[in-house]
């Protein structure tokens, strides 16, 4: 029953959005609900994981002040608990695809690749945010604005084809776009992700992780003084 609830939320969300958008804007996309749900799945995970990771150190301040605990554990636990929700949403997506009789291709078996990328990308961003938010609390508010902007720069609800050329370039610069396109390719389009996009995603994930870990390890001894 509990599992059912967790997939219910993304399902309802998808129903609402697909009703709104298939009536309001007429995007020429086959299986629009699936397109939308897959975009939501990736982006909502990123949002949830990074936002909750951001508060991981501050929220566990009382504990950090009293006992020695490796501090990255708190960030890790937040991101991985969001990953459980990601798997629940993924199950919901599969159900919707079955209900809408979307053809499932063998490329679906490649889905761990984009999921792996988005989890570790979010982890890297989350570690970085968790470390800097301890010192600068108002990043929390700024970040929620940033995420909203980022959502519109990710093709979650709209197809890439409606974008003018200059905007398309910007949207493609967003690392989440690349991962999302990869995800949709294997789920819906029966396409194997190209080597370039895999390498690009891997490089971006490595870069973000390295930056996050560097800042975190550099700052972690001063956390306790700022909490």
């Amino acid at each position: 029953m509990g599992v059912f609830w967790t997939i219910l939320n993304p399902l309802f969300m998808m129903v609402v959005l697909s009703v709104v958008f298939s009536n309001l804007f007429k995007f020429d996309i086959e299986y629009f609900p699936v397109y939308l749900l897959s975009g939501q799945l990736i982006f909502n995970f990123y949002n949830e994981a990074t936002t909750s990771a951001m508060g991981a150190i501050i929220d566990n301040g009382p504990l950090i002040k009293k006992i020695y605990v490796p501090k990255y554990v708190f960030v890790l636990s937040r991101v991985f608990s969001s990953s459980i929700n990601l798997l629940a949403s993924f199950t919901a997506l599969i159900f919707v695809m079955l209900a809408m009789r979307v053809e499932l291709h063998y490329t679906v078996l490649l889905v761990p690749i984009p999921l792996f990328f988005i989890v570790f990308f979010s982890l890297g961003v989350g570690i970085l945010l968790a470390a800097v938010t301890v010192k600068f609390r108002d990043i929390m508010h700024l970040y929620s604005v940033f995420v909203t902007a980022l959502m519109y720069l990710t093709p979650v609800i709209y197809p890439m084809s409606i974008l003018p050329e200059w905007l398309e370039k910007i949207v493609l610069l967003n690392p989440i776009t690349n991962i999302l396109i990869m995800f949709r390719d294997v789920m819906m389009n029966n396409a194997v992700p190209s080597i370039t996009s895999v390498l690009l995603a891997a490089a971006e994930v490595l870069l973000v992780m390295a930056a996050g870990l560097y800042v975190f390890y550099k700052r972690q001894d001063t956390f306790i003084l700022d909490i």
Partner: protein
Amino acid sequence: MENMDIISVDHVSMRFRLASEKVDSLKEYFIKTLKSQISTNEFWALKDVSFQIQKGDALGLIGLNGSGKSTMLKIIAGVLKPTKGSVAVRGEVAPLIELGAGFDYDLTASENIFLNGALMGRSHEEMESHYEGIVEFSELKDFIDVPVKNFSSGMIARLAFAIATIGTPDILICDEVLSVGDFRFQEKCHKRIGEMLERGTTLLFVSHSIEQVEGLCNKAVWLEHGNVKMFGECKEIAEIYRTAY
């Protein structure tokens, strides 16, 4: 000789920035940078503190409020990193710095036993084997499935003490813990600490009560305003301490 020191504190200094000077948002940071108000008003809680503890010693930290006792304990427990100097600890530390640290107040007592165990790096199986002992020592058999938020402070203290003192840790750190709980429970704690000392645990003990320190410890460090005023045999220091205050 060097290897005999289970804890060696080497020229440790600890600096805190005073709360009024703290910048904790980007907004303040920018405004203060523009107005060039970022000042460095510092407070040294510890200044060049050094001492060594041998295995099996019981060391009492004494001093007035604000003399740096708790900061010293936190540095030894690894919670704080010293600004200067280093601390080498050889062995497993059971910290009792604040009773009830690491409790999730929404969980029940029995769940908290395992949660706290995990925080100290003990496996579920290990805690399972100590479970009965903890319940018995804390005398909370009837309340074991009650969320900890409904506990009285004495009950929390009992539970926390029971969890922290399971097994025989190499080093036990106690910060004014024994001032909570009733007389009978204090006795019980003293007895337990005594037993642990006999089994070779090293004790670090902080208290205002010089009697408690004298009763438990063989060595003492007297801190005053972050400096070591005296370090040596507990009896001698206790006498001077008493006459000083």
